[in-house]
């Protein structure tokens, strides 16, 4: 487990989002953990992929080396600094071998042109933020959602945080792709009220091509959660020309009907949205689906989702919905 200077357990968190309403019931505070063992082609949170702190670079926000240049003064590497300016403007920085990851440059930047993705936070620090919105959870049946990245990569810390939420009487959701050892999952689910997970493809080879890993472990973990009596929201991000075939959705529906059954309270078919491209730029990474990848017109994909929803509902009896705006039956 990661620790801070004082030796306390920490999570590495990229973002705390308040008032989220789509990942679990009611008004929620969502915590995004950094690091993911998968790399889905359509990932819209590339800053959560790497399990260590990273520099995000926003050249447009830079004040220029003439007026500011605080980052260069802060960098301990002097002339060997990986921070580069061209014509006075900041260039995307890659944390090169010379870089000691001290992130002093980001601390010195007043304009947030250099910023750090990933912040170490203790349970107490996170709970302080979480309880701020307690009254809203109470009014709406909301609570906390742990998300990522892959929260299960930091399962020990997640377990501690979920325990603290339980003690504080706060509803908990875990959103995970479930590519993790089952014994870790068992530990975490003990303190989880609702699990949100997804199935991207039923064919393990295609799954591997799309996400970097096969699906066997994931499906096994879903079976395990169902056996534990875990209530689940299962999702499929429906990505045009990647996993949106009727055949694939039917296979997922059959799996849910036959092997998960009543544990699924909602099956959500989510539309693909081209999001996060700016973040890829700030990290110096290419967009994996390709810069030119374009989703079809709204009317087209909407009709497609509704048709798939109809098939899953009527032919498989699985409670499917298009999108994540429909109320959860909790």
């Amino acid at each position, binding site marked *: 487990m990661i620790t801070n200077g004082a030796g306390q357990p920490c999570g590495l968190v990229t973002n705390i*989002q*308040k*008032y*989220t*309403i*789509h990942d679990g019931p*009611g*008004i929620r505070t969502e915590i995004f953990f950094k690091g993911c063992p998968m790399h889905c082609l359509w990932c819209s949170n590339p800053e959560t992929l790497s399990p260590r702190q990273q520099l995000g670079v926003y050249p447009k*926000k830079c*004040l220029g080396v003439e*007026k*500011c240049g*605080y980052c260069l003064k802060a960098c301990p590497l002097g002339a060997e600094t990986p921070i580069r300016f061209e014509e006075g403007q900041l260039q995307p920085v890659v944390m090169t071998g010379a870089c000691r990851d001290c992130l002093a440059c980001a601390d010195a930047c*007043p*304009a*947030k042109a250099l910023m750090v993705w990933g912040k170490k936070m203790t349970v107490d620090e996170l709970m302080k933020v979480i309880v*701020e*919105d307690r*009254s*809203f959870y109470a*009014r*709406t049946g909301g609570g906390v959602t742990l998300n990522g990245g892959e929260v299960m990569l930091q399962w020990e810390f997640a377990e501690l945080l979920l325990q603290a939420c339980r003690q504080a009487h706060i509803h908990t959701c875990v959103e995970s792709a479930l590519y993790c050892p089952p014994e870790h999952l068992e530990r975490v689910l003990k303190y989880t009220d609702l699990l949100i997970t997804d199935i991207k493809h039923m064919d393990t080879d295609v799954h591997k091509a799309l996400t970097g890993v096969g699906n066997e472990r994931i499906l096994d973990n879903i079976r395990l959660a169902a056996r534990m009596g875990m209530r689940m929201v299962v999702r499929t991000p429906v990505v045009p020309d990647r996993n949106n075939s009727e055949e694939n959705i039917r296979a997922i529906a059959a799996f849910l009907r036959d092997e998960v059954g009543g544990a699924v309270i909602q099956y959500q078919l989510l539309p693909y949205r081209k999001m996060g491209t700016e973040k890829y730029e700030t990290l110096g990474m290419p967009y994996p689906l390709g810069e030119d990848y374009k989703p079809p017109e709204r009317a087209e994909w909407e009709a497609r989702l509704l048709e798939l929803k109809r098939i899953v509902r009527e032919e498989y009896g699985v409670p499917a919905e298009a999108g994540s*705006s*429909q*109320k959860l039956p909790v």
Partner: protein
Amino acid sequence: MAPTATVTLTNEENLKQHKDVYENACYVDTKPQAVEPFDKEWGVGLSGNTPEPSPFPRINSILKVTARTTNGFVAPDRAELVTEAYKAHPGESQEIKCAYGIANVLEKTPLYIYDDELIVGGLGCDKKGAPVHPEFGLNWVVDEMRDGLMDYSEQRTHDYFSYTADTQKRMEAIEDFWRNKCVEDYTNSLLTEEQLKGSHAGKGVFFADAYIFCGAGHLGLDYDRLLNMGFGGIRDEIDQALSKLDLSKPEDLEKRDFLRAAKIANAGAIRHIQRYAELLTAKAAETTDPKRKAELEQMAANCTHIATGTPRTFWEAIQLVHLANCIILIECNGHSISYGRFDQYMYPYYKHDIETGVSTREKMQELIENFYIKIWDLNKLRNHILIKTFGNGGIGGPALTVGGLLPDGRDGTNDLTFMCLDANAHVRVPNPWLAVRLHSDTPWELKVKTANVIRLGTGEPKIFNDDVTIPSMLSSGISLEEARDYQVVGCVEPDVSGKEYGWHDAGHMNMAKVLELAINNGRCFHCNAECPRWSKCGALGERLGPQTGDLRTMTSFDQVLESYDKQMKYWCDQMVSLLNAVDIAHQNVRPLPYLSTVMYGCIEKGVDVTKGGTKYNFTGPQGVGIGTAGDGLATIKQLVFEEKRVTGAELIQAAEDNWVGHEPLYALVNSDYVHHYGNDDDYADELTKFAMDTYCKHIEHRPNAHGGFFQPGCYSVTVNVAHGVKQWASIEGRTAFEPVSDCMGAVHTHCCSHDVKGPLAICRSVTKLDHARATNGTLLNWKFSPSALAGEVGRDNFIALMDEYVHRKGMHSQFSVTSQETLIAAQKDPDNYRDLLVRVAGYSAYFVELNKDLQDDIIGRTELSFD
């Protein structure tokens, strides 16, 4: 109650009947009956961009000829008729002269009846016409005509008024007569240089000029008195009061002139309504369509009856309410004449008509919608400076309140509550300014209805919180029953309808400017020879304010707070004294005999409403720039005194240089590195509270000139833009002339928004401030992207947010539900967005009619997105 004939009631009997009204109120609990289902959805963020929004063809057809603009024309008749009356009665007292003035207008001004409409009444001119009120000031009207500032020009791109050469000539012809006879001239004779240097005429530390040109307005008449007595009953009450006078007593001698004036004005009102009856009868006679003919005949009969009698039906009651309010607007140049608790005082008529079969729910729904459009047709003349601070206010402030507690503490929601909200969604014009009162036991159905109308995105309605407003009013000495029975006036202000002459929105204090003077030893930033006051101030080594301290030499943060406190006291002294001078001018120059007849207590006391004739008398000026002042204090505390990252001298120099050459510091003070108000951060929130409390402390309970005291408010409406235009850069990251923060909201500068933690954090930060202390009202503007409120999930979570704001004792909220893209598209292509209504602050306006500064201010407000 069964109002069938003219009855005369004492105030006590009146009050008894008034109780009866509330006992009859029905509880909807789960089954409100209105024309629309309670959970009817009209879409999210569509605003007014819909053809034929009403289910009633008649309403849609009236809407087709209804102008979607606050522009109008100057109507000269009123000014001439008042002049004629003043000239005919040169020896009479001021009260009598004023009464003859209004009576002459009501007797002779042209009347209009329009196709399809079911209600009559206007301001004595065609739709969108604005009569001239020379008693308040004529110089500016004529000057603006001469200087080309009244009609469209580069200096006046909205709220402009066309006029003919003939109109200008007619106004010039009476200009000399009014010199030194009007409120404006009288006030100016009372003012000193010290009062003026910080005012609208000086550096704009505060604005207190609105009521110099306008009347005070900002009130609602006593609806129970009007409906239960009628103008006939009021006439009889005046006669009785006159007959009881003992003229050997000097005080009765004084009352005599007031009562005579009231009698003249009352007779004028009766005559005015009779004239409508006559005109309607004539119109009916020449109408061939039998359906319309019957309607006109009914309308004539309605007017004939209510000229002196008490209304018997919903139709008669709504007609009387409209006419009685139009006459207030004809008499007085004030705005924000409000419609009280419409769903409460109209309920007995609704119930009666349904039970007896006189009318149907649909018919009454149609009447309410027609009534809303009639209010939108009205207009008021304002000068080219005032319209900048009150962009597209139009007639200004005709609030209409629904929902909330009854005087006995039960919930008062009824069918009409729902119908009034439906009517807003059906007509989608900016008037009236609808206010829904919420409290901890508001029925779920009403919350759904309110949320659905808000989600539509026209900016209506606003929500008011009984749970904090009622205690706040109690703290001003208002009785529990009356406090529970409050209405909302104009943009923001809680008010006891008919019993309060509240001088709401009397002035504005720029707290951010006060902070500037407090850290710069009384001197403005950017003090130089270009300032119009240079020769009598800076050039002599003088400074605008008192020398209370200089941040460059201060050694502790407490010294900053102390200096702010002293500086604030000085400027509040100036504003209060200026407002009291205006108050005295109104009493001496322009008493309001007609208004006095429809307010509670004036006839009984024998005192005009301007002199304190009614029960409660306040003056309510607002603190503006709360967030800007709070962030400024936090910036100083954190960066200068705690972290010592910059010196006070450097910080002031950066602002003096408008941040040029200080870019890193500019980025830093605008970043979330610095504690900022609006993020649920106690550090900044407590300092913001200090900034606000200090203002309240120096305003509250100071005596005013009409027998009451001052009440602070905390909101800006749009005056934050006007204050910003007068202020150089400020230390929390504002560049020169940018708006200061709006209402209770967080700071958003050209660089970025200072609130970054979303709606829940805003809700919590804002409710750490003491709303109850701002007895003249508070306001928080929320702006949501439509996607945040979509679907049942969006709706219910939004309701939870409203509930929490109510629970945490936030007083008042208003909502914009328009996407940033829509607003920017509308800015580029105004013609395709003529019907796009948006919340400005306190009211809604057509976005494309606003000036660019205000448009940018609205676009800049942080858009709250939930996902």
